[in-house]
């Protein structure tokens, strides 16, 4: 069976989740590999959610938030940006695959960008192959 990546998406309620709705109502096609989880703000995504998803075998994690300056709660996305940078640096230092973590700004009106991002991230992860952490019972 060919490898189908499992991707976990944490999407902010106000922008990226709206964009997902728009992509749907606009009948845009994108791969079904992303399991969306709606959160109120990208700033509410604790780094440990991202880490846990990867440790349990998600092949990729994508966090979607409002564009800088557009956060419904004013500054949540700026905080998310710092947190994602920190997780990626930890993974890089420890030799884990930080490329499996992605942060994207997608506004409520960008249904097309949502579909395109999901497609391109899925393809990127498909090329990376399965996440080894998902096979290691001892972690």
């Amino acid at each position: 069976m060919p490898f189908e990546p499992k991707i976990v998406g944490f999407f902010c309620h106000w922008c990226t989740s709206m964009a997902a709705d728009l992509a749907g109502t606009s009948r845009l096609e994108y791969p079904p590999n992303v399991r969306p989880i709606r959160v109120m703000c990208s700033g509410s995504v604790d780094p440990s959610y991202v880490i846990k998803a990867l440790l349990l075998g998600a092949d990729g994690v994508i966090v979607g938030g409002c564009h800088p300056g557009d956060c419904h709660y004013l500054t949540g996305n700026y905080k998310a940006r710092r947190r994602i940078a920190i997780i990626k640096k930890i993974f890089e230092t420890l030799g884990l695959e930080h490329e499996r973590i992605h942060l994207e700004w997608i506004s409520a009106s960008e249904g097309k960008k949502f579909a395109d991002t999901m497609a391109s991230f899925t393809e990127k992860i498909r090329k990376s192959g399965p996440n080894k952490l998902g096979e290691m019972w001892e972690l």
Partner: protein
Amino acid sequence: MTPAEFLEKILSESLKRDLVGGVITLKRTSNDAAAHALITKVELLEGCDPLMPYFPGNGADFIKTLTFVRPPKKPILAILRPCEMRAVVELTKLSQIQNENIIYLVHDCYGTIPRKEIRGNEIPDTEKFISEARKDGSMLRPLCRSCDYPRANTADIGWLVFEDGEPLIAYTEKGKAFLNEIGVEFVESAPDKGYKEILSKRIEEKEKLYAELEKSVKGIENLAKNFANCINCHNCMSNCPICFCRECFFESEAMEFEGDVFVELASRKGGLRAPTDVMLFHLGRMSHMSTSCVACGACEEACPEDINIGQIFKWVGENTQSIFEYKAGRSWDEEIPLKEFREEELEPR
């Protein structure tokens, strides 16, 4: 100022003349153990020695205990190591310490010896220890051996024991006023000949340490092997001065599930290790606090399984802090990375 003079002229004198409400310093509790102690009675200064090569845990924790609800009304003189001072700076930024009535006196630090090696023996004589540590740091804790901040200028007063004559220096007005009142000499600017000598050795050791970690810890298999004997006791977290949360996320209800959730998790990988979420705990803790890690190594000293957790946190912390050109505890003015942000930074992500 020699250690004997320090004890006499600073600690003893400040208590005798009632200049402070008490002094915090290291005091022997037995032949092979010592603790931080708040001393109010001159007679109890017996057995006190701030330079002894013993690290009972990060003293910043005690400063937090002392000042969290309301700082003492009368000034307290706290003698700390540079790593403890860095933790004080971080905890102050995290609103856990109130500094109003604490006078910080921080000495240059030659380092400390692992507690496990002292247990059952004796804490080595300080003078003998220092003359050995100047030549060769192999007996030191790995984090002391590779410490790149063995002096702290964030304190009120510095005791420059790396330099000839071991002078005192006042870094703040508060420190100056105290030294003037007690009537001891101090220098205006810090000589750094001895400091630079020690620092270059430490940095050399640090690079060796990181090269070793790259080989032994980096990579999924290595990482799993490195934490294979972790018993998830969370001692590292409870001894960490920076981990101040009353309730830790990793000990909260967020970690509790119905039985079938665990069965499902096991069936995905074919098995599930108990205790669960060991790696999540360590990686998660790194993501929560490595940007404020002062590399004191209290975690490593507390680990019953001898995992090199402090070395890993120092290494990871230096990297995560470098994203923001931050160094935990270096300065009072820099905001901690997780409390602030810039509108334009970190792009492209």
